[in-house]
């Protein structure tokens, strides 16, 4: 149980529901067990003028009991609904808080889709488990055991038939379910197999057609479909047994009760009415056992989900001890951003191999109001530098100073307040344009200021077209084009009060004209707002005016300096320049 301690903790506020619910169900079950006994009495009494009032009284009593049972069951269902909804809400809250407190590196290590599943469908699965627990877990065993106990009281030998029958039923039921459940996982894999080949085929339709390989893919699809059908049929070999065998066991139990009952009636130990009582117990018991069988499957799923949730909640957010000592401060206070011999690998732990470094021994410094350009081929580590400046990842070696302080000595919030990034892939959030632009601010910006900064980002025109700052932004900003999204994310960065702007290929989706206008406007803006810029680009003309340029190749700095110097001194730089000057970009 310790394994599920976080979930149990969230169940604790619903203690009352967890006790009251099953208690109400027990009460209902007890009432239910009395019905067959009373029924037996009615049958035994038979009809005569004397028995009239007895029959009426008994029938009314039974009806009253059934009604009370309904009331009790309703109470239980309500408890179950409250507890499962509540536990679900609490778990979602805990999970989201936990996920937010994890570092980006930890989130990525977990896998974003894994976290998504944990917060949505896993929580739902646990809710179902909670609800079923309250509603059914006690009912089934109680009806079974209660029925057997009642039978013992009525006539012990008859109860043996019921007990043996129930055990046989339960064992058969569970073993068939177990086998089918396990095999069903294989079936699921085969279905994923179909999905794989179909999606591959659909995504490459032009290539498939161009190489005239339709038949090949059709064959692959058919093979996958056949494998799936075969597996489904092979599972059916077991699952098809479930219904006939369980019904047979139940009916056989009824026949044996009848048979043995005949002897007991002969010996005058039981009455015909009691025989009816026993038969009815068999029906109720086997009904409950059937439900229990389904419950096993639901619970096994809930437990798998619960373990995943526990796994997420068990994670310890990276503790960031503020750095102290000599390295905590940089005494060269003229530099606003400074990297000193920084190395970083996304696979920290595998440090032994230099090949895994995303960036290796990078140093540079940048003064207030200056612009740093970073250039290099794809995969050379450009974007990593921005992520490291924001401390989204922890560096393996070296030091990064921002505003004269080591970023390890600054609280995250203080560090990130100083910087505003525009990432390569733009992410906008659902809400209004205004919400999106104010996202990095405590106090919303005034209307005129927003307008001014959006104009710098070349975004004002289309914002007006969309209906102004209060226009909706759909999830992932899908109602904007790629270029518009990029301009909004530039505007978002400009709307903060950050001293340092970080641009990661921020104009890749803009056409030549717009991107030139933006460059000019940004130059003005940066001057008046005294902002420092770090710009990553694959286009030389965008960083040629930088105060300092770093040329990266495979994570290492292969050249740094000003544009003119690099052209003549750095081979990698001049090669990139040559490849872009061939006919000019665009």
């Amino acid at each position, binding site marked *: 149980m310790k394994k599920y301690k976080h979930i149990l903790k969230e169940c604790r506020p619903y203690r009352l529901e967890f006790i009251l619910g099953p208690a109400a169900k027990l009460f209902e079950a007890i009432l239910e067990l009395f019905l067959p006994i009373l029924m037996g009495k009615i049958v035994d009494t038979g009809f005569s003028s004397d028995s009239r009032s007895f029959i009426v009284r008994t029938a009314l009593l039974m009806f009253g009991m059934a009604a009370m049972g309904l009331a009790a069951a309703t109470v239980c269902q309500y408890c179950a609904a409250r507890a499962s909804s509540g536990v679900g809400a609490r778990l979602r809250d805990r999970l989201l808080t936990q996920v937010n407190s994890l570092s980006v590196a930890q989130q990525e290590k977990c896998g974003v889709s894994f976290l998504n599943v944990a917060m949505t469908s896993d929580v739902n699965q646990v809710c179902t488990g909670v609800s079923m627990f309250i509603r059914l877990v006690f009912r089934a065993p109680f009806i079974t055991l209660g029925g057997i106990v009642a039978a013992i009281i009525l006539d012990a030998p008859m109860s043996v038939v019921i007990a043996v029958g129930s055990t046989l039923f339960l064992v058969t039921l569970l073993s068939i379910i177990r086998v089918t459940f396990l095999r069903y996982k294989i079936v699921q894999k085969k279905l994923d197999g179909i999905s794989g080949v179909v999606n591959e085929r659909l995504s490459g339709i032009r290539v498939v057609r161009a190489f005239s390989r339709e038949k090949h893919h059709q064959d692959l699809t058919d093979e996958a479909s056949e494998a799936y059908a075969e597996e489904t049929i092979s599972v059916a070999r077991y699952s098809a047994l479930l219904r006939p065998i369980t019904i047979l066991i139940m009916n056989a139990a009824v026949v044996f009760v009848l048979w043995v009952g005949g002897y007991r009636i002969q010996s005058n130990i039981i009455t015909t009415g009691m025989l009816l009582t026993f038969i009815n117990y068999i*029906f109720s018991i086997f009904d409950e056992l059937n439900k229990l069988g389904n419950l096993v499957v639901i619970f096994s799923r809930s437990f798998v989900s619960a373990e995943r949730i526990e796994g997420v909640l068990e994670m310890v957010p990276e503790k960031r001890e503020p750095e102290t000592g000599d390295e905590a401060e940089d005494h060269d206070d003229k530099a606003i951003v400074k990297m000193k011999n920084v190395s970083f690998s996304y696979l920290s732990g595998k440090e032994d191999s230099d090949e895994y470094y995303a960036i290796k021994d990078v140093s540079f410094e940048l003064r207030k109001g200056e612009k740093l350009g970073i250039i290099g081929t794809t995969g050379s580590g450009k974007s990593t530098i921005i992520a490291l400046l924001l401390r989204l990842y922890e560096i393996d070696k070296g030091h990064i100073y921002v505003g004269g302080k080591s970023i390890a000595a600054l609280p995250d919030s203080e560090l990130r307040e100083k910087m505003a990034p525009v990432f390569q892939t733009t992410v906008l959030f659902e809400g209004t344009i205004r919400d999106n632009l104010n*996202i990095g601010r405590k106090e919303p910006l005034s209307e005129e200021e927003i307008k001014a900064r959006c104009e710098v980002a070349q975004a004002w025109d289309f914002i007006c077209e969309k209906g102004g700052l209060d226009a909706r932004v759909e999830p992932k900003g899908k109602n904007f084009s790629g270029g518009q999204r990029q301009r909004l994310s530039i505007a978002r960065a400009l709307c903060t009060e950050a001293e340092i702007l970080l641009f990661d290929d921020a104009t890749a989706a803009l056409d030549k004209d717009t991107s030139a206008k933006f460059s000019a406007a940004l130059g003005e803006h940066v001057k008046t707002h005294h902002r420092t810029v770090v710009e990553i680009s694959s286009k030389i003309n965008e960083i040629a005016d930088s105060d300092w340029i770093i040329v990266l190749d495979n994570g290492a700095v292969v050249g740094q300096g000003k544009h003119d110097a690099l052209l003549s001194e750095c081979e990698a730089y001049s090669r990139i320049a040559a490849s872009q000057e061939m006919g000019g970009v665009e």
Partner: protein
Amino acid sequence: MAKDSMLSGMGNLSPDAAKMSDAKSRVSMKDLAALLRFTGTSKFSIVLLILAAILSGGLQVVAPAFLGATIDNMGEAGNVDLKYLGIRASILLGMYLVAAVFTWVVSYFANVVAAKTALEVRKALSKKLTRLPVSFYDTHPQGDTATHFINDTDAISEGMLQGLLNFFTVMVTILGTVGFMVFISWKMTLIILPMAFLMIWSATTIAKTTTKYFKSQQNLVGSISGDVEENLYGRKEIKAFGCEDKFLDSFREKNDRLNKSSVTAQFASSLPNPVTRFVDSTTYILIGALGVWFGGLTAGNITTFILYWKNFSKPINDLTNITTQVMAAFASLSRVFKILDLPEESEDPTTDEKSASSEKATSELNEKHSGEGEVLFEHVTFGYTSDKKIFDDFSLCVEPGQKVAIIGPTGCGKTTLMNLLMRFYEADGGRILIDGKDIREIPRSELRRRFGMVLQETWLLERSIRENIAYGRPDATDEEVIAAAKAARAHGFIKRLPDGYDTIPGKEISLSEGQKQLLCIARVLLMDPDLLILDEATSAVDTLTEKRIVEAFDNMTRGRTGFIIAHRLSTIAGADQVISLGAAKTK
């Protein structure tokens, strides 16, 4: 059945009630008849299944009466005819055993028929996918088509399974039961039948109310899932802009509302169980009390009636679940047939011509680069829709071995040119000739084999690099594959991969966009085509990688007719002809 009872129903957030509202479909006899076509080889199994279902249903009607009669006739206390009882009990056991065998036949063959039908539907769909024109793929999202293939077909199979499992048995059982009940006591029948309707009525009424609550809950669930997804998707932004709390606040507010609405929805959805149990108990009491009251019923009769009531209540309880699945199956069925009924690509020239021309193709393959590869566009007219012409009276003459660059803004028809050349789409007017032959007279596979095509999006299979390069010619030798890779400037990096040519890209190692593109070029080179098309193949890579691709491409175009579609001028340097296309003309 085990499979469905395990996997459906009881789901916390998608109860039957909510599912039911989604399955907005009508039972279409036409679709059902069409589905029968796919049962093909299973027809014998279906007949067997129906026979078994009728027999097992019949036994379910006879056995309770037999049981009741035994109780009444075995005699009073101290006077029980044990021999009679033994014989009757054995017969009863035998009946149940036979019924179990029949039930098994129904269950097993229902599964088999459903699985085989699904297989046939999938095969038909798969064949259809081969024959559908490229325009289908351009207008139908991949996810939708995959859903038809996977989920809709599964829904059909599941609905069929439920139908086959229940329909015949339930029909026989209910009809037979009513008949026997009337025979034993018509008065009791008059009590039981209304109770059955009461049960159906209460179950469906609750289900309807529940649907309402679930809809509002479902909206919140969707909204919360959206929040969760956004939180993960925008994780870097949220951290960088320090707005964790803003997100948490909005999430908490929704989560709170969800909690409240979920209590109502779940409570409502859990009510059918106790309510039907109450109706069940009431009926049970009525059978006992009134049976005795009217005086006509013996203990045996009462047992029989209780068992008959079970014959009724079981299918009624399953009713919602089964109808939901059957309705969903019909909805899926009509979606699948919509695809199957779509027009296919026009037929290639007749078989005679085909075999003749493919012989010619083989001979052509042998005498490569004989200066062939002349392409003529004669007054070509084309538009994806009738009101927007991409090409209007477009003519172009490309001599063998020429390199043609096609430039122009987005949407001007650069890619359309390729679509027409490869016959992914057919021209509306005019004609396209290759070496003097109208491309409509050349079988598609032969025409396409003459072209080598490299697209902007690199498409590789999750198979070894060797298999990927040999995609168009699976029989190619290792030497040929390596030669193609060398010509594509890809050999160098492939050699450095952990498993060389056996590396599976995407699985073991992720290749850069540029590397993938070089593999696509190698794949084309191995085909040794007469004509080449390079469609924006370098727009996703940086300029240095682009240079390498262009080199590989130059290497490849030597002696071949080539079409280069690009928006970067650097890619098209050195072309013999540059065609600049304007924006699309709207009529």
